């Protein structure tokens, strides 16, 4: 049998994607597709892992036992999401050890939002409500991705995220019905998270070098701007329904388009925060390293167990 040329393989690959079929591990794929996916999935995995930290620190102080249990469950879900995504990235040939190492050494990038502080209880609610809503819109889109293992992980994750949003909204709605100080605390949290959450969907597509190829091969099926607009259209009425203000005096429903107009965030700030210079980058990495170190005895115990297990012949 004649070996297929690169052009033939590429044509078959693109035709498969055009038919709406998924690419599976072991299929031929262009190097750029693989590289792009490893970058996106590993950054996504790191975001889930680091995403535990801003909220996790509130577990000891959650108001009431039910909220504490809920928050533990949410944070545990995020850890699980990280592991699912590391597995998805591994199917492309990069090991989990390697990715964890990149995170611990500060080489890896992860979502900008997790580098902002959580000084009040309202931050926990607002993260669940705003940040997870934005994440779900992105992840629902990614559940359609052309790469099978990533699509499967996303479907499982999206199901759990709806619980994250609900519990966050519930916490903020409770504050909304509270005393003036509680309402003010919630409004303050909304003010601080608004722009970082808008940045989450990524810079405008003109600036995004990766979007083109990602769209062509259906790694993503929507542009950053589309995802962000969907978020704004969904969340602005929710914020206003609770009697809170959107911290953007130029945010209004454009009757002509049916979409909300909003002020673009500061893209220079996004660049800085993603590249390591946000308010909490150093703290997040320090905590991540510390818990990794504190978990050494668990890994040692498991490794000892492994060496006692008879290997399959």
């Amino acid at each position, binding site marked *: 049998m004649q070996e297929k040329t690169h052009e033939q393989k590429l044509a078959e690959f693109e035709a498969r994607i055009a038919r709406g079929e998924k690419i599976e591990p072991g299929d031929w794929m262009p190097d750029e597709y693989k590289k792009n996916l490893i970058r996106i999935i590993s950054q996504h995995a790191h975001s889930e892992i680091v995403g535990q930290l801003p909220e996790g620190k509130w577990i000891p102080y959650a108001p009431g036992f039910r909220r504490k249990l809920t928050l533990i469950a949410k944070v*545990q879900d995020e850890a699980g999401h990280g592991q699912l995504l590391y597995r998805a990235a591994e199917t492309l040939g990069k090991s989990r050890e390697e990715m964890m190492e990149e995170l611990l050494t500060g080489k890896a990038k992860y979502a900008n939002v997790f580098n902002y502080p959580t000084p009040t209880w309202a931050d926990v609610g607002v993260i669940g409500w705003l940040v997870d809503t934005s994440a779900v819109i992105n992840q629902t889109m990614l559940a359609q991705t052309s790469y099978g293992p990533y699509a499967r992980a996303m479907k499982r994750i999206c199901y759990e995220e709806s619980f994250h949003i609900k519990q966050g909204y519930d916490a903020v709605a409770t504050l909304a019905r509270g005393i003036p100080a509680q309402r003010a605390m919630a409004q303050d949290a909304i003010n601080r998270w608004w722009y970082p959450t808008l940045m989450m969907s990524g810079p405008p597509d003109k600036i995004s070098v990766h979007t083109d190829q990602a769209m062509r091969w259906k790694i993503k099926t929507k542009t950053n701007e589309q995802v962000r607009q969907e978020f704004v259209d969904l969340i602005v009425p929710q914020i206003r329904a609770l009697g809170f203000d959107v911290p953007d005096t130029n945010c209004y429903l454009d009757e002509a388009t049916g979409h909300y107009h909003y002020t673009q965030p500061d893209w220079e700030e996004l660049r800085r925060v993603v590249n390591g210079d946000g308010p909490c980058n150093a703290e997040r990495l320090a905590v991540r390293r510390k818990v990794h170190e504190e978990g050494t005895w668990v890994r040692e115990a498991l*490794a000892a*167990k*492994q060496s006692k297990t008879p290997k*399959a012949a």
Partner: protein
Amino acid sequence: MDTQWETYEVFHQTKRGDAHVHVGSVHAPDPQMALQLAKDQFARRLKCVSLWVVRTKDVTATDYQDDGFFAQSTDKSYRDPKAFESPEKAVDDEH
């Protein structure tokens, strides 16, 4: 320390009588630990009555590249119940 470990494929049964369905995989140092981690990862919310874990490397799979493997060279309609005369239809036609 190496914590890469082997991977185990995880199969989840929602209720007795259902098939075990592949849901993903976990890293683990041994099968018992794989079950424990599979429970944490895949059965911490939805109902589950049974989990299987199988070492990934023990799975023998077909090759996506080898599309000849599933190619049907002849008419297989003789395997399809719809390709035959139906007693129910005969009874219906009678009425």
